[in-house]
């Protein structure tokens, strides 16, 4: 049975539907990300789980119990806010201890648990610091310790890393994943950063305009995007207009001067999408011209103008010589690397 279950959850503000028909089953210990652009309803969904907003329709259940009937203060969920929302007039230790105080944990045990929680997030020795005297990363850790010390049934993270600089964000991602693995708390992360979602989660819920576009593992959502939105949002992708010609035998899929045996099913105009790193330069294939060539250390990034419109190609820097700007090339890829869907 699912640990946390959302069934047909919807939220309306007046006439505006912010979240619609959101259904998801989260297993115990799972790390789930809600991924989508701002305004897609991911934070609203999180706030409904937390209890700061009531769903207009639908049910939220935790271990089979109706969560919406429980007051937010009694839900026992740990939440890390985007702004951290630390209590500035309390020290780090007092911040972390607050939730335990509210639960009437005896003083001795409280001190011990606060110390352990701060040590877990790597802040041993910072007990007496006030939040405003700490760096963004340290504040983030205090917020995490404060949410985890109450042993929450579910940990909710609302864009917790978006205020950190790139390098620190990467460090915190790794650390967050390690902590979550160690203590095994069921976690839901809200983010608009696809890299963050992919590197942290067991499963990703891709959302757009209040609806779920796809639920799947990071690999699934990246390799087999269910919709044009998902393939565009998760990493870079090339969309080419193509046709499937079933008049000849065997049937062929044709995009410019590239062609391959047609997949079963569709016919007529289709759109094919290929990730930039799956395209190779070959002797035959889609003819194109290199417009710009950018060196990025471990890989080369090419912007090409092809028969089927602009194309992006990424090649590993494997020491081989690469085509130069202005050079005419042929783009080729394996048919199994492309996705085929109906023409837009």
């Amino acid at each position, binding site marked *: 049975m699912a640990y946390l279950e959302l069934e047909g959850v919807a939220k309306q503000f007046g006439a505006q539907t912010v979240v619609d028909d959101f259904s998801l089953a989260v297993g115990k210990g799972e790390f789930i990300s809600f991924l989508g652009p701002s305004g897609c309803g991911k934070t609203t969904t999180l706030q409904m789980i937390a209890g700061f907003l009531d769903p207009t329709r639908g049910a939220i259940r935790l271990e089979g119990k109706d969560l919406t009937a429980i007051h*937010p203060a009694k839900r026992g969920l740990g939440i890390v806010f985007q702004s951290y929302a630390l*209590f500035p007039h309390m020290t780090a230790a007092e911040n972390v201890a607050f939730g335990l105080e509210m639960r009437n944990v005896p003083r001795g045990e409280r001190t011990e648990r606060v110390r352990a929680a701060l040590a877990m997030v790597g802040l041993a020795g910072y007990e007496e610091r006030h939040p405003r005297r700490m760096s963004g990363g340290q504040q983030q850790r205090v917020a995490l310790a404060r949410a985890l010390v109450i042993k929450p049934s579910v940990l909710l993270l609302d864009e917790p890393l978006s205020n950190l600089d790139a390098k620190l964000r990467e460090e915190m991602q790794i650390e967050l994943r390690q902590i979550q693995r160690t203590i095994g708390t069921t976690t839901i992360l809200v983010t608009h950063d696809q890299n963050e979602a992919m590197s942290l989660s067991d499963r990703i819920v891709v959302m757009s305009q209040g609806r779920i576009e796809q639920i799947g593992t990071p690999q699934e959502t990246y390799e087999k995007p269910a919709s044009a939105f998902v393939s565009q949002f998760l990493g870079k992708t090339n969309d080419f207009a193509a046709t499937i010609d079933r008049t000849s035998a065997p049937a062929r899929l044709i995009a410019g001067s590239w062609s391959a045996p047609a997949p079963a099913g569709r016919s007529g105009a289709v759109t094919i999408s290929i990730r930039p790193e799956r395209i190779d330069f070959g002797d035959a294939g889609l003819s194109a011209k290199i417009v710009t060539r950018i060196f990025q250390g471990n890989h080369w990034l090419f912007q090409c103008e092809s028969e089927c419109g602009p194309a992006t190609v990424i090649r590993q820097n494997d020491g081989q010589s690469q085509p130069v700007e202005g050079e005419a090339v042929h783009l080729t890829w394996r048919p199994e690397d492309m996705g085929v869907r109906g023409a837009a």
Partner: protein
Amino acid sequence: MSASAEERNARTPWVLTAPALMLFVGVLLIPLAMTVMLSFHDWGQYKGIEPVFILKNWHEIVTDPYYAEMFGRTFRIAILTTLLTAVLGAPEAYILNRMSGCWKSVFLLVILGPLLISVVARTLGWALLFGGNNGLVNKLLMSAGVIRAPIPFMFTETGMVVALAHVMMPFMVLSVWAALQRLDPQIENAALSLGAGPVTIIRRIIMPQIMPGVLSGAIIVFSLSASAFATPAIIGGRRLKVAATLAYDEFLNTLNWPLGAAVATLLLAALVLIVVGSNALIERRYAEVFR
């Protein structure tokens, strides 16, 4: 850079601030210094002001219990007014802050609106409502048989405190409002998710964070109330004098300018000491919240 250019750069700030500086010196520092000097001059019914240096006025103020009573009343009224505005104004600002957009601007206008009306008009309003047998409220309550005699309001310290609190309320609300603006909008949700009830959230999370706002509002209200003139003059009249009305009377009725100057100087000195002292205390106590 050449020496002359360096010199010019060093002079620039002085040149640029000179007009404001001259205004400050001319209309504030010089009259203030003259008032302080005036308080050491002698005065007699027939000889007028004599520009000598004596401590007669200061001796009179320190030894005559009449002046102790005046200053005692002044600060008692100021403290009570400050307490009243804090007790009413802080919740008022909190409620205002929680209102939704449209209502918020309407009620902010309601709170700030009185600032556009003269203090005299606002205080006379109280006099019209509670002034003796003819006051509107008194008349109504008496004809309804609720009270027999008019509610004592005019010429009472209570009346002065109530009227002053009404005049000063916008300053307290604005000050607390400013502190509330600095609050993290998610902070109440954070406390809620950790299991805190509404009372605990206000007492443990909101109150400590808006305390600096309440205290700086209190400093403004206290100093304005202690030096207020119009409200005490209308409600208290000649019967209940405070330091400001006392100085006024010495200057314009008795024509004893030196004594009036001594009263004014003492009031100023006391206020500066109290305000600077409490400000330093607050800044030390709430260093973490202020940063």
